[in-house]
């Protein structure tokens, strides 16, 4: 009397099926979480569009982010900086998003922008060194000029930093204390 392999595996079928469904479910769940619920594309207090400013109107990055080449922080422009242009631009007080900006200006409040690109407190990062070394903004921040709402493209993780330092052969670029503090 003989017994087939499929017959022998019959008791294991149900657990195996459950296992496969669970694994697929985990992957789908992670994907859904990553796509729809991640903090990579937070909703900002004003629907500011980099596409309109940087691409359509061709404003250079460092016109607004003025500290990028001389400070650790690139700098978020002040409301005054925004209003400097928007009082002069013809349709300044017509569009709803610009009206929001004008509201902040009238109340003399800073705009509570949500930070998209952040590194932990134990990381020493300076925009200055990177900008002066000729790294383009888009290499880390992605095609910002094509984004309406800013999305974080880069993973901002240590291997991501180290890979670039290795590729470009940065002097002492792989020493821990170059970036850690």
């Amino acid at each position, binding site marked *: 009397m003989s017994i087939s392999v499929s017959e022998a595996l019959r008791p294991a079928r149900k657990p195996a099926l459950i296992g496969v469904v669970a694994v697929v479910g985990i992957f789908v769940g992670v994907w859904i979480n990553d796509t729809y619920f991640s903090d990579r594309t937070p909703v900002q207090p004003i629907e500011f569009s980099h596409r309109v400013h940087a691409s359509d109107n061709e404003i250079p990055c460092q016109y607004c982010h003025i500290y990028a080449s001389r400070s650790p922080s690139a700098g978020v422009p002040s409301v005054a900086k925004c209003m400097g242009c928007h009082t002069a631009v013809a349709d300044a007080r017509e569009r709803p998003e610009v009206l929001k900006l004008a509201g902040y200006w009238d109340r003399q409040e800073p705009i509570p922008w949500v930070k998209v690109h952040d590194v932990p407190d134990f990381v020493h990062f300076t925009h*200055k060194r990177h900008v002066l070394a000729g790294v383009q903004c888009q290499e880390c921040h992605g095609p910002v000029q094509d984004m309406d709402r800013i999305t974080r493209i880069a993973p901002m993780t240590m291997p991501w930093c180290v890979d670039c330092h290795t590729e470009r052969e940065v002097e002492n670029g792989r*020493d821990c*204390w170059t970036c*850690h503090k």
Partner: protein
Amino acid sequence: MRSEVDMSNVLDKLREYSKPGYYDEFDYHWTMTIDLDRCTGCEACVVACQAENNLPIVGEERYAEAREIKWIRIERYWEGEFPDVKLNFIPMLCQHCDEAPCETACPVFATYHNQDGLNTQIYNRCIGTRTCAVYCPYEVRYFNWFTYTWDEPLEQQLNPDVSVREKGVMEKCTFCIQRIRMAKDNAKDDGRRRVRDGEVVPACVQSCPTEAMSFGDSNDPDSKVSQVMNSPRGYKVLEELNTVPSVIYLKKVHDDV
């Protein structure tokens, strides 16, 4: 049948791997000299270090448990019998040994020797086995037994260039590596590759009222520290352990000798 093992190759490998940090030559070799003849034991360096490097005030109880954290401390040595006693001070800080025993001990390579001859500690990587503190003959490694907090508004005075350490992490003197990094940064802005002598001043050296300490690159023969360290009074603490410290003390001279 196995061929004979080439022992010379093995020894070469052993020598290579047992060298902390894998550097034969250092880019800079940061060195400190401390003139004990000038040290008055005022502890200004201790306070300066505390302010610069976000060291916690552990409090009386923790201090009694010998869990204080001071990257530099003033050790007192009494000489002679009462009433004919003399008091000697030795500021003791991480010696940044070129053959550091602590570096060989760390299971996760949280402490290592970098290209500037600094014995460095990566807080994120540290898992708190405290082996390094056991191996350190100078007892200058400090363990965070607790997460210390700063009451408002004292947290505003924390140095943003130095991370605030948490519970379970070993820490020690870094020769104010954030200032070294800043000096290198400024040098790059000026289009220089090298930092000039005197541009890097750690907090303790800066605060010393009698200028007993000096700090610089001993690879540069013209630097102040290179000249001071060749003094006939110069010695290294526990030199016989072959740790090759980067801190050179200048002996105190007694007038009655």
